[in-house]
């Protein structure tokens, strides 16, 4: 119930912020929503893993980076459009994710949380340094015609392609909700997240479910890796900030709260865009999310003390 209230608050704050900003500085709304979509689409799979497997995957953004590199080389070698690489990248990354899960994370499920954090942090470093060694730190980019499509409304002119991430994030959240609440496997996953022992008692293979959920999350982030090529250049460290932002968004939303991630992403995206809209504040844009997190955690602890 606490989660429902928090979602409602986050969504309401997001809407209020959006309305205020839309009237005052429309570009902030546009760019803010575009990055919100990207943030949410990347954070949702991390939230899925945290909510069900109860692992904070600090290599989350690095999985996306690895998938982006694989897609990049596949696309440049074959001349394929990154959009066509989305599904293959999802499938391959799911396999890779399952392998990594079986070899490492699975063995740490019963370890103290600190050990789990060190493990996934180690994976993150291994991935980014591995890519660095193999392919150098050079930035790589695929030029695409359609991503520069822009729309002009009155005096306003902006790129429309990044809105695709808003749809992807919405589809991901809605699809996962349907999966978790309507299918037998999804319900089993939800049950495992809420009570693994109870799940085993009713015949659910908990270990297999963890593997499945981890593979599903890495599939989503793998697809995002290919899609990411349409938005940005890549380099070995490109995933790191997304790990941090995803973690913060998931923490703001609360464990297992996927709609809350959408709300938190809108709040973060709009705040950043707002800071960027002012020349003097531009440098602060990357810090704003730390401020938001501290505000949320502070608010929560004050509320906790009251009750």
């Amino acid at each position, binding site marked *: 119930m606490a989660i429902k209230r928090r979602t409602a608050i986050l969504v309401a704050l997001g809407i209020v912020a959006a309305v205020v900003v839309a009237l005052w500085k429309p570009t902030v709304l546009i760019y803010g929503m575009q990055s919100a979509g990207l943030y949410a689409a990347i954070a949702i799979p991390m939230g899925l893993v945290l909510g069900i497997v109860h692992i904070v995957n600090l290599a989350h953004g690095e999985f996306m980076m690895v998938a982006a590199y694989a897609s990049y080389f596949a696309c440049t070698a074959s001349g394929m459009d990154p959009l066509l690489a989305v599904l293959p990248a999802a499938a391959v990354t799911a396999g890779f994710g399952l392998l990594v899960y079986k070899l490492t994370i699975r063995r740490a499920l019963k370890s103290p949380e600190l050990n789990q954090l060190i493990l996934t942090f180690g994976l993150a470093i291994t991935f980014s340094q591995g890519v660095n060694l193999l392919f150098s730190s050079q930035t790589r980019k695929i030029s695409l015609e359609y991503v520069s499509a822009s729309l002009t409304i009155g005096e306003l002119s902006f790129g429309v392609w990044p809105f695709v991430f808003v749809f992807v994030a919405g589809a991901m959240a809605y699809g996962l909700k349907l999966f978790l609440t309507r299918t037998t496997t999804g319900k089993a996953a939800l049950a495992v997240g809420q009570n693994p022992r109870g799940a085993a008692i*009713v*015949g659910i293979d908990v270990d297999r479910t963890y593997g499945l959920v981890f593979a599903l999350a890495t599939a989503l982030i793998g697809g995002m890796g290919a899609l990411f090529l349409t938005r940005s250049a890549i380099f070995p460290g490109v995933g790191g900030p997304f790990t941090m932002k995803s973690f913060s968004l998931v923490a703001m939303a609360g464990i297992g709260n996927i709609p809350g991630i959408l709300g938190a992403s809108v709040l973060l995206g709009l705040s950043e865009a707002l800071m960027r809209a002012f020349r003097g504040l531009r440098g602060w844009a990357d810090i704003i999310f730390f401020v938001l997190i501290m505000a949320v955690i502070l608010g929560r602890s004050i509320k906790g003390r009251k009750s």
Partner: protein
Amino acid sequence: MILDVKKLEAGYGKLRVLDGISLSVGKESVGLFGPNGAGKTTIINAIMGIVKPWGGTIEFEGTRMEGMATHLVARAGIALVPQERELFPGMSVADNLELGAAWVPRGKPIMARQLETVLELFPILKERYRQYVGTMSGGQQRMVAIGRALMANPALLILDEPSLGLQPSIVAEVFDRLALLKKDISILVTEQNVRESLRAIDRGYVIENGAVVLEDTAAGLAVNPHVVSAYLGI
């Protein structure tokens, strides 16, 4: 025999809890009695594969089960109502009940029929069908846990303190229902409420300090001086 446990030893870390327990359940209803900490829950956890036995054998319908993973024990046809309930608090009554049957080959095909039986047994669950289980009272959650286990259409139903937190009238009713169920299902039940449960069982074991100290029919236990003084009270 449906369940045949021989010389079962188990414990936690260095603590030995079960010291060679042997018991069996046929097409009948069997009670496990004993003081707090005697090892009743540990016996059940060993049968369910929740704790790994140190020694001894567990046979269920002719198959050796000791050390088998919990979900496989459940799929083989043993359903458990745990002492701590172990429900899915953020899911509805409907989903909790459905999950009781969804992964068990014996339960899945007749899920609709079992659901009817369960809702008839606990009408309150029908009223609260869409409510989150985590927001229900302890006694109501106990009913969900019993209902969830029945959904599996088990060959053996194990209940660990089923009357814990239930009001006396419901306890009586639960045991009446269990007495009816035992026609089709074998039952192994632990209970502090010995008097009430003696009505529903055929035989019982008294466990003390991890060993069986007494085994008798329900009628025999009811008049046994040790049982009368230690468990029935006057």
